[in-house]
Every structure is written in structure tokens, then in C-alpha cells.
């Protein structure tokens, strides 16, 4: 990193009340305050958001694509977690 380089930040925006924050992209900024300001100018100038989170990219822990099978497959065969697994007799509402 040279003296004039700024770290990478990931940006998350909540588009409106009721929705969660969604990843919209990244930008470079020297610090958190400037990252928030820049995110507002870059990612919400068309009114696309009510709340912004920024986080230094190197602070994010991510699962590895290699681990995919071990990490995610076990969830696949527990089908009783999905509502479609259950039979509901005709005419029974609100279930």
C-alpha cells in the first residue's frame, strides 16, 4: 500500500423501512466517516436508501467456496424445515 492509497470498504444499504440492508457494492475511502459520506453520494443519490452501513473489506469473514459441501449440504436433507413438507387437508385455512 502506498502513502496515498485508501482501503476498500463494502457498502450495505437499507432501501426503505421494512427491508434489511443489502450489499450494493464497494468504494475506497480513507476512514469510516468519509466512507459513509461517499456511500451516500455514490449509492443513494437517486433516493435509493434510508440507512447505510460501511465496513472495511478486510474485516469481513467469509465462508470458502471449497467448503461448500460440508458447510451447506447438511441443511439440504432436513426437509422438515420447509412448510411444503407437510400435508394440510383441504379447507383448513391460516396454516
Amino acid at each position, binding site marked *: 500500500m502506498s*502513502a496515498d492509497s*485508501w482501503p476498500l470498504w463494502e457498502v450495505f444499504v437499507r432501501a426503505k423501512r421494512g427491508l434489511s440492508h443489502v450489499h450494493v*457494492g*464497494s468504494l475506497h475511502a480513507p476512514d469510516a466517516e468519509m466512507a459513509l459520506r461517499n456511500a451516500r453520494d455514490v449509492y443513494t443519490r437517486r433516493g435509493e436508501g434510508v440507512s447505510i452501513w460501511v465496513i472495511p473489506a478486510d474485516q469481513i469473514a467469509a465462508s*470458502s467456496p471449497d467448503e461448500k459441501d460440508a458447510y451447506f449440504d447438511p441443511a439440504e436433507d432436513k426437509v422438515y424445515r420447509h412448510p411444503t413438507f407437510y400435508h394440510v387437508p383441504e379447507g383448513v385455512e391460516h396454516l
Partner: protein
Amino acid sequence: MYGNDFGTEAPEIAPDDPDFLAIIDADGRIEPRDAMPEAYRKTLIRQMAQHAHSEIIGMQPEGNWISRAPSLKRKAILMAKVQDEAGHGLYLYAAAETLGVDRSELVELLITGKQKYSSIFNYPTLTWADMGAIGWLVDGAAITNQVPLCRCSYGPYARAMIRICKEESFHQRQGFEILWTLSHGTEAQHAMAQDAVDRWWWPSLMMFGPPDAESTHTAQSGRWGIKRFTNDELRQRFVDMTVPQSEALGLTLPDPDLTWNAETGHWDFGEIDFTELFEVIKGNGPCNAQRMAHRRRAHDEGAWVREAAAAYEAKRAARTSEEAVA
């Protein structure tokens, strides 16, 4: 959107790796830390970076007319358009960075001339009507190229393109509107509009690159879902879309061979002189030196500002950790 997964680099695989091709053939998306052929990664970095560079350099020919826009409304619209271009460059650099390169490396490659940008931005904007011609023709050509990229196999690039296409729709419309107003205005305005179209038409056609027969990368890029249509296909699509628009504008296109071909259902057009394109790409266009000098100057003159901000944060972080220890 860019899913910047972190940690180790993506493992390398063969160019015809069956699992990789299966994702592409199923119209799926390759994401940042997926296994991918090194050539795929390199091709994408180069393409996204050069696309980003084009947006940034493109700010200059249009930015020229912000201070002289002939009405406050036009000034505001032009400022917003150029600002969007900065944003597009930023989204594309961000997408390129997901493949393990830093933006500063890419900027260095642009400034040293090792990476290119779209040849069209090496032409001068001589009159206000050029703002109309660029919006109508250059953005029109860009959109023709960009819409298929929204389905590019690389996830971050496709998502950046979707965002860009949404913002781009007003750009072409404002260019058309400028030309329409000029074309139907005073005689001098009409002449200004026609002159601009006469100068920007052929360079816009050249934006799609050399003819398919002379295009080296298309086959591999096509197989990998990076390039969905060929140069000639996209160029034809652009011509077919644009000719009726020129009629609506009341302006002519500077091609005596432009004729409707009822058999093919397309507009036939005259032969393009590609030597001009190759000269411009080599660096011998009207504005190459000027565009690069401007970019270099902005970058160099901004160094002290960037350094100051980094130093301020370093000082603050040091103070915070001292306080934590105390």
C-alpha cells in the same frame, strides 16, 4: 452485489473445465472466489478495467461543456450525466477488484498507457451539439453493447451492468432531446446539430470494434459467456435502431450507402474505414494525448490530498489504540 469474498485467491482450473462450463451453459453466474481458468480471470479484469477507464475518460469530452451549457436546465442535466459516468467507473473498478486487483493498480495501467479505453473518447467536443450527438449516438452504442453484458457469466460484472443500464436510460434520451431541440430551432442550431452528427456517426460505428473476421477474442469470450453477441451483430443492431431515430430528428446520417434491405430486414450501410480506428487505438487520434494528460494531472495533483487523508486516519487510529492501552 459485488460479493467481494475475501481470503485466499480463487483456485485455477483448465479453460475447458467441465464443472465451470456447466455453470456457464446453465446461464449461471461465476462469483469471485469460485474456481476459474486464469485466462477467464485475466480477460475479465482487463475488460472491466477498460470499461471503467472508458467511463472516467468519457467524463472529459462532456465535462468540457458544463461551464458553457446554454441553459441552467441543460447545465444541471449535463452535470448529473457526467457525475453518473464517474459512478459507473466506480462500480466497474469495484467489480474488477473482486478478482484480486487493487483499483490503484488499474489506474496506474491506464495512466501508463498499458490498458486502453474506448476509442470514441479521443474525439473532440467542438460544439454544444456534440453533447446531443454523444448522448444519442455514443450512449446509444454503449447501451447496445451493455444490455447483453447484464447477462455476463461473471456475477459482479453482470450486476454492475444492471445498475449502469438503469442509470443510462436517461443519458440517451437527453442526447436525443438536445438534438431534437436544435434540429427544430434556428437555422444555425439545425446546422450545428447536423454538423455534430456528421462528425460522430462513423466513430460511433467503430465503437463496436473491428469486423468479426478480424476480431481475435470473440470465440473464447463467447464460450465463457463474457461476450454474447459478435461485433458485427451489435453494430447492425445499433444501425437498425438509430436510422429511424435520425428520421424523427430531421437529421441525415453521413452515409450515402445507407439503404433499407427488405430481404434481410436490416439497414445496409457503407464500408467503414477501420484504419482510422486502428490509428486512434494506437494513440494517434485527435485527443489521446490531451485526455491522458488531463487524467495524469488530476491524479498527480490529488496525491497530496489522498496522502493527507490517509495520514489523518493513521494518526487517529494510533491515538485510539494508545488510549485503549492506557
